[in-house]
Structures are given as structure tokens and as C-alpha cells.
């Protein structure tokens, strides 16, 4: 049964994590047995784990073209399902459940907020986002992803400077004949490769230096940057014999690994650069050394100050914080209520 509230976080039986976000009769980033229209905000695992169930149930699934490319790169079978609607940012999709718009979220390539208008009642799901540089559309009801504003991810950063510094760090290590492992979440990983190959404005890294990533991440890269792919060097697959030969000789190369793939024991002594994943509280600098490499904060999440600014622009009357994706949701709801006493704010689901 759907609740009376226009927005909610709805978990299925025996589920309390990564639940679906309901905006009216539209379900985002999760499965609901009563749903027929779904949306996926971006392709990170905690937001796309329910695709298979959704495909079996929903008539329409809306997502950004880049996210769709990444999803079909992860499992090519999804490509052949007719429910997909690849929708660009800020274009209207009309269906019986309402008018749906995807808005740029500035989290990873293709990431989107989902805006729904049902007969003048407006609802917004933030998804994972980073403010500013984000599209804004006002909404009466807002569902906030609660990994945002969490003090352990509240560190300040300048993404371009950090990516530039990463590249310089890589060059320095490669110049001293050392192989490098870069660990990042899918999406961010592709963004870093693109930055190294295209966006970085200084001296580039010779294409003789091999770049390596897993077969799946390579596919995602080639899909989401299909217009730029010709400018990239040939990427060696992590599973290939060619890569094994590089490892056997400890040859210099740059290995991009997603966090779901732990490096083999052979790579344990390589120089390691880790992006996000760890706590980056506000008092910590964006780049911090570790005993075997360096940590970089690319701040793919919004800080508490940014959330306050975001809410001011959205002007909601009611906010639901998503406690199925972060235990920080109740605290975030309180902080928002303290800053905006006029807004009703509460976490869902009740755990």
C-alpha cells in the first residue's frame, strides 16, 4: 500500500537499505511491487542494485543517456529491454504518473536529480549531488540523500585542482619508474581518466605509458565518453595476459580500479592513490598522505553549508531525509529543521 504522503522512502519485506524513493507514483533508485514508472538517478551500485527487479515490473524506466550507457555496459542484456527512456537534462517526459524532468546533479557523469510535477504538486529527489554547479527547479516536496552534509564527508575541496594534483602525482611516480594504482568509485574513475587524457592543460602523459582498468570499467568509459574515446590511449584490461606481463615485470603503468575490485597481492607494494571512499571531515585537507600513497577528496557529495543553500533555492515545504542509504538521516533532518523551522523535515524509513 502506498502511504498518503506524496513523497516517501519505501522498503520491501526484509529490506532496510537502499530502498526506493517514491515521488507520487514514480519510484526512484529502487523496486516497488506496485510501481509502473521508475527512475535511476545515477549508476552507482547503491542506487542501481534493483534494476533487475524493476525491469521485471515497471513499464517505464527513465534515466540519463550516460547512465543508461553505463548500466548497459555493466550488463549488456539490459540494452534489449524496451522499458528504457533515455532522457536528457531538463526535458519533460509526460506520463500518467506526472511530468518528469531529470536535472543535472554534478555527482558523476550522467547523475541526475528527479523532478516530478503531478497536477501542480512538485516533488524532487536529490539523488547524490554536489552543490553548486547544479540545475535548480523549485519543489514543494524534497527527498534528500543523507550521505550529504554528514560531517565525515564535509571536507572542502576544489575538484579541478585536486584532479590536476592527482595527475602531477601520477607523472612524478611514472617518471621514477613506479607503477600507480588509482582506486575510485565507478563514474569518478572514468572522470579521472578523461581528465588525464583530455582536460588536464599541462604536459600530458605519453601514450606509451599503459592505462589499465577492468573490462567492465573500460566498457563504461567507452560508453559514457563515446565522443571523446578516440583521444584516449588504448586501455589494457585488468583481466588480460598483457596486464599480467606488466605486473610480472613491475612495469610502470597506471591502474584504475573500482572499489569493488580489491587489488591482487602483486599490487600491494605499488603506489596507491585513493579517491573519496574515506572520511574527509571539514578539518582535513583535500589531499592527505598515507603510508603507501595518497588520499584525494574529490567531494562528490554536498557539504552541510551547500545543502542549506540548495534548500533555500528549492524552497520545499516538506523534506524527507533518506535513512535507507545513510544513518545520518535523522541528524540531518534535525539540522535542517533548526535552520528552517517552517519546513517539515523528517527521516524515512523509520528504522
Amino acid at each position, binding site marked *: 500500500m502506498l502511504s498518503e504522503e506524496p513523497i516517501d522512502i519505501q522498503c520491501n519485506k526484509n529490506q532496510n537499505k537502499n530502498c526506493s524513493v517514491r515521488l507520487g507514483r514514480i519510484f526512484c533508485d529502487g523496486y516497488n511491487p506496485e510501481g509502473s514508472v521508475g527512475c535511476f538517478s545515477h549508476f552507482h551500485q547503491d542506487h542501481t542494485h534493483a534494476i533487475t527487479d524493476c525491469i521485471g515490473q515497471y513499464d517505464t524506466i527513465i534515466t540519463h543517456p550516460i547512465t543508461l550507457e553505463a548500466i548497459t555496459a555493466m550488463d549488456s542484456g539490459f540494452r534489449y529491454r524496451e522499458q528504457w527512456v533515455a532522457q536528457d537534462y531538463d526535458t519533460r517526459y509526460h506520463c500518467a504518473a506526472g511530468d518528469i524532468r531529470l536535472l543535472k546533479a554534478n555527482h558523476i557523469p550522467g547523475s541526475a536529480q528527479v523532478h516530478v510535477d503531478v497536477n501542480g504538486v512538485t516533488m524532487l529527489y536529490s539523488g547524490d549531488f554536489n552543490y553548486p554547479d547544479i540545475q535548480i527547479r523549485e519543489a514543494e516536496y524534497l527527498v534528500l540523500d543523507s550521505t550529504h552534509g554528514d560531517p565525515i564527508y564535509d571536507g572542502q575541496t576544489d575538484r579541478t585542482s585536486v584532479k590536476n594534483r592527482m595527475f602531477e602525482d601520477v607523472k612524478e611516480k611514472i617518471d621514477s619508474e613506479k607503477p600507480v594504482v588509482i582506486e575510485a568509485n565507478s563514474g569518478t574513475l572514468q572522470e579521472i581518466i578523461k581528465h588525464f587524457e583530455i582536460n588536464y592543460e599541462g604536459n600530458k602523459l605519453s601514450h606509451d605509458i599503459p592505462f589499465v582498468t577492468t573490462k567492465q570499467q573500460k566498457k563504461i568509459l567507452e560508453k559514457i565518453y563515446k565522443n571523446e574515446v578516440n583521444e584516449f590511449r588504448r586501455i589494457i584490461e585488468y583481466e588480460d595476459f598483457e596486464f599480467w606481463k606488466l605486473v610480472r615485470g613491475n612495469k610502470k603503468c597506471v591502474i584504475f580500479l573500482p572499489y569493488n575490485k580489491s587489488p591482487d*597481492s602483486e599490487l600491494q607494494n605499488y603506489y596507491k592513490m585513493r579517491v573519496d571512499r574515506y572520511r574527509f571531515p571539514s578539518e582535513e585537507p583535500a589531499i592527505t598522505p*598515507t603510508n603507501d600513497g595518497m588520499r584525494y577528496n574529490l567531494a562528490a557529495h554536498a557539504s552541510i553549508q551547500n545543502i542549506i543553500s540548495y534548500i533555500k533555492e528549492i524552497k520545499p515545504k516538506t523534506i524527507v531525509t533518506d535513512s535507507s542509504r545513510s544513518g545520518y538521516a535523522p541528524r540531518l533532518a534535525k539540522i535542517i529543521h533548526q535552520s528552517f523551522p517552517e519546513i517539515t523535515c523528517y527521516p524515512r524509513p523509520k528504522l
Partner: protein
Amino acid sequence: MFDKEIFKTDLINFLKKSIPLCEKYSKSLIIEELKQPEFFSTGKYKKFNFVKKSNYDFFITKTLKNELTSLNEYKILIKFFVTKEFKNYNAKLLGTSYEKIPSKPNFAYELPLKFLVEYLKHHEDFSISKKIFDKVFESFFLFLENLLEDEYIAPLFNFESNISKHGVTINDICIRKINESEFSIFSNLEENVHLQNIFHNLTHVMTIQYPSSDLNSGYELIKEKFQRVLDSLSLLKEGNPRFGGIYRNINNPWIHYDSKYEIDVILRNPLKMKKTEKKLVTQIYDGLNLIDFSQKGNKFLEIAKKRFVTGLSRTSKTDQLIDLMISLESLYVSSPGEITVRLSNRIATVLGKNDLDRENIWRFIKKVYNMRSGIVHGEGLRSNEINGKIYTLDEIIEKLIQMNRHSIMIFMKLVNHYNENNKIDRISDDIDKALINRIFLKKLKIKFN
């Protein structure tokens, strides 16, 4: 740890189940053509030959990994790898990277696959051989008993010796002939079309076993130890021995090798060490070991030693002269003022065997210090006539090398007779006293002879 025999039984059970699987998928086995070095009887590199080798490593740890790790026999085996020793081994490989992550990889679980690789490399056939199994098992078990132990190896460049592959031991460091795989890795034989000259003369390595609970701390310590061997060799006789880099676990099939401190070494005059000189090198090494160079009072000796070794490796003769003079100054003169007089007086007192010898040394040092000043102050090389004799720069340097070598050895003994406070000043005072008091000179010489 655990019962060796029970483990052995379970390991052979795993082997019995794995081998048919390997045979079934043998079409996926990659055969590579690899370069293998061949050496002259002198131990020097002769040429490479292409040899065909099956790549069991990729075949087992990548191609067949899922099939092999699904075997019940594999699952039984990894149950052995849960003791404290294996946890420490895994923690060593993990470093602090995974500290806050609940699901950590367990690298000990790769070991049964590595055993299988090693067995196949030795046997080169998909059948069971008890003899090969026993041989590989013994080596495997030895590794399991010393999980945290690493072997560090450094190529010894500019070094010649009749030391065999069995080696000689200097304290805890072994010098021995290089083997094929070491040579291939050091010289990057697989990719190099033309080897650098330095590799054509590479015949020996230094090795040491060292246990550590992390991947980072070992290298620094081993570098110091290897450098101490080189210092000992340099103090023994002429030559420019060097190590280009330090490699870890090249000969260990159970853990992947790595390396640090890759530096370019140029071909220089080799140090020729006879096997019988092991005792002398060990004495010098032990003498250096006795001195705590981190103590402030011993810094002057460390500077002298470093300048001496640097001086030996210089390609420019004038640079060499300056380094060697700095080395002597570090030993004999601790403060500014009348350096020429103090330096020549003290060196003559310590090194001179008789009055004539002392006078010759005194005149020589006075003159060479003057030459050094000419170079340092931009005048270039001043007259090289000493005691009415024209010396070539090579002859002067040769003499300085001997004086340096002799002086450092003497000071290595002297520093142990003095307390920490103002050690160098007190040694200098005693040398000055010895200059005017023959009885005191005799007493001083007892300290370093």
C-alpha cells in the same frame, strides 16, 4: 602453526583434484618465448637464448582461478591459513590501506594456487609426481614457517671475485654469484635489445634475509647494511663497487618481487675481491657496525667515510681530489684557522712510520691542500711539484686514497676510546700532544694498531 603431515595430505589431495582440471583446460595455457642469459666461465654475460616456457602462473592464478578455488580440497586447505602467523602475513601485505574497511582481501588464500604453479613449473606435466611434490612442498613449508621473512638482493657492480654461487658471508650478508633470473630482472633482459656495459661485467650479488611486519621499513635498513658492505670493500682495497638498486624476493615464488632505489651506475674500475679476503672485509664491517653513526660525536667519521666513497666514484679528477681532501679535513680538523698546518701536522703524526716518512707526508699534505685551495677558489690547478718531484694528478689521488683509507680505519678504532663529548676535539688534542711527545705518540698508536 599446524601439523605438517596433515597439511601435506590435504595439499596433495588438492593437487590430485587440480591436475585433471589443468589438463582439461590445457589448451588455454600460454606458451611464451623468453630470453634466458648464458654466462662465460668467468661468470660474465655471454649472450641470451630464446627458450619456450609454459606460463603456469597466468594459467592457474587467472585463467583457472574460479574453477580451482571452487574445489572442496581448496576450501579445506585455506582453513589452515587462519592462524596468527597468516593474519600477520596478510596484514603485512594489506598495509594500512584497508584499516577501516570491513571486507579485507585475504592474500593467504592465493597460496595454494601458487603452490600449484610452482609444482607445474618444476614438473612441466599434468601428472602427479611424488618426488616433485615433496621437493616443492619442503620449499613451500619453509616459506610458511617464515612468512614474514623477505630476501633482499642487490647487484654488485664494478666488482669481480672468485666467490662461487654458494657465496661467502659477511656478518649477515652473503656475497655470491648471480643467477639467471636475477640477471634477467636486473638487466631487464626481456625488453633490452642492447645491454649496457655495466651488465656485461655484472657477476655477483649481495643478499640478506630480513623479517618485517610491513612492506615499507625493510628497504631503508637493508640499504644501510648493503652500503656498509660497500664501505668495507672500499676501505679494504681499490675499486668502485656499487649497487644499482635493491630487489626483494626475486627468488621467492610465493610472494611477488619488487624493487627500490633504482639508480644509474657507471662502469668504473672494479674492486677485485678474493674469496680468502672474506675475513678482512668482515673485520672492517664489524668495526663499522660497532660505531653508532647516529651519535653526534661520530658524525665527523661518517662524513669522512661518505666523502671518501663519493670521491672514489667521481669521474672528474679535480672533484675527486676535493672530496678526498674534505674527507681528511673531517677527520683531522674540527674548527677553522691554520688548516694547512694543523692538517699536515696531524696526518703526518698519525700515518708516518718514521721521521722521514712523517716529513714526506707533512710536505705532501701541505702542497695538496694548497692545490685544493687553488681549485676551490677558482684559480685552477696550481703547481704539482712536491718535494722536488712532479706528481701527476693520478699519482696524487692514488696517494690521497691510501691516506684516506688508512686514516678512516684508524679513526674507526680511535672513536671507541673516547666519550661522546667533543670527541673529535679530544682526538685532535691527543694527536697534537703526540706530535711533540714521543711517549704519548706510542700510547696513541696502541689505541689504533
